[in-house]
């Protein structure tokens, strides 16, 4: 199970919706670290022992795509699994994000069932299943 989860979104409401979905999906014991943009999320990822990042795409200062690139480019954070949640996803963008290293791209509004299914698949991956 993921124990420390970063949620990056410029909307406090969106962060809360994501957090509630994760709690309902079985992560009510997790520690949630909130970031208002990609730059904050990157700092938190570098300094914390986070084992999952859930990020929006459209954020000020540093968007989700740039955040994903920076996360995957840093040896310290490259193994951090990243889920992208956005209202702006489409197949071309999704393919780009997956190529950059995102584990999954979800469309808003997300639901606990969808996020539980994705995290179940993530746990089956050998590199993350030992978490």
């Amino acid at each position, binding site marked *: 199970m993921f124990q420390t989860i970063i949620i990056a979104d*410029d*909307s*406090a*409401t*969106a962060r*809360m*919706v994501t957090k*509630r979905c994760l709690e309902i999906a079985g992560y009510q014991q997790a520690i949630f670290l909130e970031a208002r943009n990609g730059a904050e999320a990157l700092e938190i990822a570098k300094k914390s022992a986070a084992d999952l990042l859930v990020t929006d795409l*459209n954020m*000020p200062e540093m968007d989700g795509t740039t955040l994903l690139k920076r996360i995957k480019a840093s040896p310290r954070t490259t193994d951090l699994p990243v889920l992208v949640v*956005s*209202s*702006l996803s*489409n*197949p*071309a*963008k999704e393919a780009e994000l997956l190529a950059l290293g995102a584990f999954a791209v979800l*469309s*808003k*509004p*997300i*639901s606990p069932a969808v996020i539980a299914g994705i995290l179940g698949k993530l746990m089956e991956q050998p590199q993350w299943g030992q978490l």
Partner: protein
Amino acid sequence: MSDISREMEAALVDSVSRTMEDMAFEQIEQLSEADAKAILEAPQMGNFDGENSYAGLGEGLMCLPQSNEQIWAALNLIDPIQGEIIIEVPQGYAAMMTESLFGPADDPYAEDLLRDALAEVLNTLAGLFVKALIPSSREYSLGFPATGTGSSPNLQPGAKTWYFDLSGQIMTVTMSIGEFGEFNLGAVTQREVIS
């Protein structure tokens, strides 16, 4: 300005329903304009009682802001559909929705948080609306929501309004579609733009 097709109307109503169910955990019912106006004009229904609570919203909401002004959020549809959507709810309903998301609070929620909640609802429903109408492979873009309290920005002529019942409160969704989809941003420069 383009006419709003039946397909667009169905997509909008479905997007509103899905968003409110998934984000605000609220089953909503579409109302005719006449029914909505009857509710809006009825005494006690959705009107702030002037003391500590909102009529019609039940007990346990004493911490909510003591005003029944409207809160609105507006967003431009940029590509490939140009237009604008505005949603508007009573501040009491925005507070109730925020409370359902964030939990009870001792003090009233800051108005910024109420606006943020409404902006996120609009952002989500606008994405669903556009995706329902374009090929799945097509990229699209939306503007950032602007929010405010009181009178909402004027839309282009030809805009259409839909009414929804939210636990006795009325939410209005107004949309116009056209190649000149930008609403007059000059009119909202004094209002907060959520980035």
